[in-house]
Each structure stands twice: as structure tokens, then as C-alpha cells.
């Protein structure tokens, strides 16, 4: 099943998926290009670099250092500090909780750690903390190893995924983008854990959809734990993974010449990319390494201006088309009729209003031919000059 996908990668080894990349799959589900490349484990950052559209996805080492420091502090002395936080949050008895560290992160021990995780979960009962567990999830026919921060057992035998993040909760409020990213990541772990329990013959519902997010409190390094319900994220994730499974068929249908080996010359890579349709949206810029190339490719489409603008323009695909419809130089199709009428009305209004003003000093080049704003051509410039 994954043969076609492996072929797409050329000679390069597959990129390792993690919860973060799987979580990213849930954004922009309509993009086939991304689905195929991610399923194949192609090295998107390298491809983007090779074709001259490098992304900008660095992470500051200060942020990494703080994240690691916070986690180390919580897990010191067999998770003493973490236990007190979880104790309040999950009613976990601070005494009598077993703690199992399944070993450090290293590529060569993956299978062994996963086996230990399975063994531990198969026989576990009672309150326990499992550190460095290793789970697996099938993503488009590929087995992916995942490392949750921690799994905590509650006394009643329900499992909770614990996610440790070093961003701050100030007066009970945190950055919503960071919280939702953490929630999607935790949902990936919940799903993987449920699949594992199912394999082991347990009830998958033993894994709670309530995950625990441990963050720093206010402006200090003191931990604060909150419970997040990730049911919604789980549903999205399941749907996405089912969709990815059908990606293999898509990949198999591609011509045999298509390859995403980052060592190929740029022209070949671009030719290969153009075989698979992308669906660019501005949100891609913050999640996908290929976004800059796709943006370049999507220039002149209304989708590149973002969803609200595209909707305001009646869902018409190309900027040229919008302008032609507004100017009345193009006959609208039946389904464009309504949008075209609105666009013409907007163009008339704008022409009327702009003729009332003397041509004021407008900075050179500030009158782009691309309409933007909520109502199309009526709003190329939002204020009067």
C-alpha cells in the first residue's frame, strides 16, 4: 500500500512524523499536494529550499531551553512537583502512585520502548505515571512513533494524557492559538493510546478525552494544570486520518516520473509539484513549509487573498475574472450571475464616488489592480483620498 508513496520520495529516507506534524495535517484538509507529500514523508523544507522558496520555521533556542527546563523541573525527583499539580487536578492520590520512566529519547530504542509501553499498559492497574511512553499511529499506511510527555492513570483506572507546555496562563487566560495547538497535539496522543488499548483487547474509552495541560502560572515558573476536553479535535483528526488513507491511491495514479527527491534539480521538482493540485490559503504560511511556493503559484487567485475576501467576491476564482465581471466585459455564467451583479454595482458605486474627489496625492503604485476589502472593487482604497 505504501509502495507508491515510498517511490515518490526517491532515495530519501522518510521524514519522521510527530504529534506536531500530524496535528498540522488537520489544517487545510482540502490540499491534496500537502496530503500526498506528508503521507509520503517527503522532506518539504528541503524541497522548498531547493526550488528557491525557503520557509521560515526556526525556533528560538531560548524558547526550547525554557520548555526543557520547565519539563525537567516538573519531572525532577520522580515527578514530585508534577504529582502535586496533577493531584489537585485529577484527584490523583499523591502517595502510592507508581512512576515508570521508559527511557530516553533515542532513535535506536524506539521499538524496545514501544514494547515496554505496551507491556506496562497491558497489565497496569491503579494510579501510575508513565514517563517517556512511546505510542504508534498508522498515518497513511505508515507506522509513526509518538511520544506524549506523560500518561497518568487515575485511581478509577482512566488514562489521561498529560501535555507539558511552557507558555503562561495569566489570571486564568492563555494565548488561545497556543492552547488550541496543544489540544490538537494531545488529541493525537489520545487517539494513539485508544488504538493501542483496542489492540490489547481493552476498552478504548478507558482513555479519557479530558487531557491535562500543565503550563506555567502568571509570570513565574510555578506550574498550573487545567483539564481540556479534546473531543472536537479527536473527531477532526479521525476524519483527516481516514482521508489520508485514500492518499495512497492518489499517489499510485501519478506518473512514474514524479519524484520528490530533494536532490533533484529545481525544474524537475516544480514539474513534479505541479502534478498534484494544491489549495493555498494564507493560513498555510504558518503551518506548511511549501507555503511560499504555493503562494507564488496562486498569485492572481482570490484564494490567495484569504477566505473572507474570496467569499466577499462571490467565490469567483481569479482576480482577472472578478475585474472583468465588475467592468461588465465578461459574460457571467449562470452561477456567477448574482455575484457579477453585486460586483458591477460595487464598481459603479466606486466610479461614482471617486469621480467626486479631486485626484489627490496618491503614493505611486498604491492603486493595485487587485481588489481587496469586504466588497470588492468598491474598496480598493478604504478611505477617500
Amino acid at each position: 500500500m505504501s509502495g507508491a508513496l515510498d517511490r515518490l520520495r526517491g532515495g530519501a529516507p522518510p521524514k519522521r512524523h510527530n504529534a506536531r506534524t500530524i496535528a498540522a495535517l488537520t489544517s487545510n484538509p482540502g490540499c491534496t499536494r500537502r496530503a500526498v507529500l506528508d503521507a509520503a514523508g517527503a522532506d518539504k523544507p528541503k524541497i522548498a529550499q531547493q526550488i528557491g522558496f525557503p520557509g521560515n520555521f526556526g525556533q528560538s533556542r531560548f524558547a526550547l531551553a525554557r520548555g526543557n527546563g520547565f519539563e525537567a523541573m516538573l519531572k525532577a525527583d520522580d515527578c514530585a512537583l508534577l504529582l502535586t499539580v496533577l493531584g489537585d487536578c485529577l484527584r490523583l492520590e499523591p502517595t502510592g502512585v507508581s512512576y515508570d520512566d521508559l527511557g530516553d529519547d533515542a532513535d535506536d530504542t524506539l521499538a524496545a520502548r514501544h514494547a515496554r509501553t505496551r507491556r506496562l499498559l497491558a497489565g497496569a492497574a491503579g494510579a501510575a505515571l508513565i514517563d517517556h511512553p512511546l505510542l504508534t499511529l498508522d498515518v497513511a499506511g505508515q507506522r509513526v512513533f509518538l511520544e506524549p510527555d506523560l500518561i497518568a492513570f487515575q485511581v478509577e483506572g482512566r488514562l489521561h494524557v498529560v501535555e507539558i507546555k511552557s507558555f503562561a496562563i495569566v489570571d486564568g487566560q492563555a494565548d488561545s492559538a497556543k492552547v488550541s495547538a496543544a489540544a490538537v497535539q494531545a488529541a493525537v496522543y489520545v487517539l494513539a493510546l485508544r488504538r493501542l488499548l483496542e489492540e490489547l483487547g481493552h476498552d478504548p474509552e478507558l482513555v479519557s478525552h479530558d487531557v491535562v495541560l500543565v503550563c506555567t502560572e502568571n509570570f513565574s515558573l510555578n506550574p498550573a494544570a487545567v483539564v481540556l476536553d479534546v473531543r472536537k479535535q479527536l473527531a477532526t483528526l479521525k476524519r483527516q486520518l481516514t482521508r489520508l488513507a485514500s492518499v495512497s491511491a492518489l499517489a499510485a495514479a501519478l506518473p512514474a516520473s514524479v519524484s520528490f527527491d530533494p536532490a533533484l534539480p529545481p525544474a524537475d521538482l516544480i514539474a513534479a509539484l505541479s502534478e498534484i493540485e494544491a489549495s493555498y490559503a494564507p493560513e498555510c504560511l504558518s503551518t506548511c513549509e511549501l507555503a511560499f511556493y504555493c503562494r507564488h503559484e496562486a498569485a492572481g487567485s482570490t484564494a490567495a487573498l484569504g477566505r473572507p475576501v474570496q467569499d466577499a467576491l462571490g467565490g469567483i476564482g481569479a482576480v482577472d475574472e472578478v475585474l472583468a465581471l465588475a467592468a461588465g466585459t465578461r459574460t457571467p455564467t449562470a452561477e456567477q450571475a448574482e455575484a457579477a451583479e453585486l460586483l458591477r454595482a460595487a464598481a459603479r458605486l466606486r466610479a461614482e464616488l471617486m469621480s467626486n474627489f479631486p485626484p489627490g496625492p496618491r503614493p505611486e503604485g498604491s492603486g493595485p489592480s487587485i481588489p481587496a476589502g469586504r466588497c470588492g472593487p468598491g474598496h480598493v482604497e478604504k478611505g477617500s483620498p
Partner: protein
Amino acid sequence: MRHLHVHPSPLVIIPLAMAGEANTPLAAMVGTTAGEPRLLTVAQPRNRDHRFAFAAELADVLVRYVDGFAGAAEPIAVDRGRDVRYRFTDAPQLWVPNTGGVDFLRLFGRSTRFRGTEGEYAVPPSVPLLGRWLTFFANSAEVPGSSLLLNAVQALGLHWATGQSSAEDAQLAALLGWISPPPGRTGAEAALAAEDPAVSPPAGPATDPSFDNHVLAPLISSASPDVAALTEVLHAQLLPTWELMWRALDLLRGLPAGSRVAGRWDGDRDAYSGFVQHLADGGPPQPRRDGAVAAAARLHRLENAATRYAVQRAFDDPLVMAEYRLSGAAFVGQVTLAKADRIDDSGKRPVLRPRIMVVTPEPVRVEKGAALTSPARPGQKALVVSVTAVDDARTEVLLELSGGMGRKLVAEPGSVPEVGERLLLTTLSEAYRPGGAFPDRDQTPWTHGGPPASEPDGA
């Protein structure tokens, strides 16, 4: 048309935060003149003393700037002339690059306003005062139409549209590149060039990760950082944004102000005067979170302000009104009939109720009984008596007028539209909106948690 007040001498603040930390300042460039940027830095952001030294320095700049307006005041009649209150004739105005800058100031205000000035971790008295001012500004930035704390990205976006998405517009350099590209370049080219963090460093508060890793980390990882070198790289990192800020201000100053901008600035001066008074009276710092009653009242005020602002912008600016005309909430038509002396004597006493007929080719989505206003005569109400389609393209609207015509039974000259006049009518209205009635704090209903316990003094 400009929809916000641009102060002749605003205080520009560009904060930079330490990556990963909870709103820990790294540096800030501040000043009221383009030629005199002042750089404040934190040599060791994780060191508490250094952070509060930075806060004290910022307080020195900001509190002095803000206090500078608490001088000349003007009397304002209140309670129908029975009383008088004073309002300062000018108020401070802060500018930051983007919404991230506003959030930074809010959180920095939160982290400083409860600090103690005595005891073990004492800070200079200016630090909690800074926190209270920053909180005041951050709160006012949430009020639609307020110009006390503005961010350049939003202010420019309000007046110019670009051919890029809002995600790309959020970067000040790319946005300005598009709006006013350097000679010889198109907006799209300039915007693209501005995306390279090596050319245009991010406008903060987040720093460029590769700057963190390759430039900053070697400098601040040592126990005794080289302050001179650190200052130099931070200055280089902030200066491009500093120049962009002043360019943005110049561009905005080049637009003529809408006629209702001054009225909203009056409201801002009221808010400023009120807060100066609150501080002088020894009022407590703003609470961490509003109680139920305070939150509901604030929400109500914000909603009122949002509605008023939307209406005022449309009345000021024909291009904003065009949006309402497009959707049928406003239309321009020609007066074809006018009966200026019509008297309605069906009530107890006769009243002047002229009627006019307006014909428009534009879409009309108002119903019989709706009350319309015309920006040309804001004090006059036009009640829709009937809406009739004349043919495919035109609609006749019959209106009955009331108000704004003097007290007599004969309308003042010019107060009733005449035949042939082009008239804009809209469902938007500038009418006064009464404040909501909310219970006292100690009368908070049980559905909202009951009366709150008194706010604990926090550190």
C-alpha cells in the same frame, strides 16, 4: 478620509520580548520624535532586578509623557448645565507596531501594577504606576474608535487595502511596502522583499528565531553580558521598525480627518482626565479580572462604542457608506415630490410632518415603518410610509419627516429636502443610546456568582 486622531506628538513604543518567557521584556525603542529614538534594554532578561530596572526606565519615559498633559483643562457643562466638570485640553497617545504590541503592554501592565514598593521585593513607586497606566491604555485600545493607544498595522489597514491577505498585512514592513513602495518598485515587489527577516526584522514583540540563535544567544548566555555589543545589535534590530512607525504616522497625517474624529477624541480626553482623577484620589489598581457586574457594564459600553463608531465612519466617509449602499441598508435617490407644510392633526395637537418621495435606482432593503436618517440632516428622522417598485430598475420610497425643522408649524428654510435634491438615506442612526441598567456590585445576582468577595490585594 482619516478615522482616527493622530497626535502631533505621540509616544511611539516598540517592545521586544524574550522568546519563550512569559512576557519578559528584552528591549524597547521609545520616543516622541522620529529623530530621537531612545533604546531601553535588559542586559539579562531572566534576571528579576534587570527586568524591574527596565520597568523603572520605561516608567520614567511614559509616566513623564503622560503627566505632561495633565495641565490646562476646560470646563464642560454636565447635568444640563447645572454642574461643571473639567477635562484636560489634550491627552497622551501611544503607538505600537501591531496588536502583539498592545498585548505586550497589557501583560506588562499586569505584571507591574500589583508590585509592592516596600518589603522584600520592593520596586520604585514609578513601576506600579507604570503598570496602572499601561493597563489603562490597553483597556482603552479595546474601545472601538478610541485613539489613546493605537497600533500601526490596524490603523493603516483601516485606511488602505492591499492585494495581499490579512495574514501578510499583519507584518508592518510588508504592509507599508505595499502601501508606499520605494521608487521603482511595485507594492507587491516591495512587500515580498520586506518579508525577509534579515532585511526587515519583525516589528516585535516576538523576535526572529535566527536572530535569537545566532546573534542574541552568544551575547546574553554569558554571566556578564557585553552591554555595549548587546545594545548595538538590539538597536540595529529595532531601528528599521522605528522608521516604519514614523512613516506610517506621516502617511496617516496626510489624510484629511473625518468630521466626527474630534468628537471621539473628546471622549478619549474624558477617559484620560477621569483616570488622572482616579489616580489623584488614590484609587486602587485595576482588578485582575472584572467582576460580573463590571464586566457586563463594560461589555455594554464596548458594544455601544462599536455601533457608534461604525455609524460615524459611514457618515464621515462616502466610501465606507458605499458598503451599506451595496447591501441595501443605505441608498441615494432623488427627491421627486415634497410637501413641506404637511400637518398631521390626528393627535391631540397638530404637528409638522412633511412628506417626500424619493426615487432610487439602487437596491432598497428597508421595510414600511423603518426609521431612516440622512447624514446631511442627522437630527431628522424619516419614517418609511411605503416602498414601491416603479419598474425593474427603480424604486419609489415615500417618507414622513419629523424633527430638525424648528419648533413652529412651518419648517425652517432648508430643513426639508426640496424636489430635485439628491439624498442619501440609511437605516444607520447616530441617535443616543442609553446606558444599560446594571445592579450594584453587592447586588450581583446568584446566577452570576452572587456578590463578590472583596478583591484580595495581590503581589
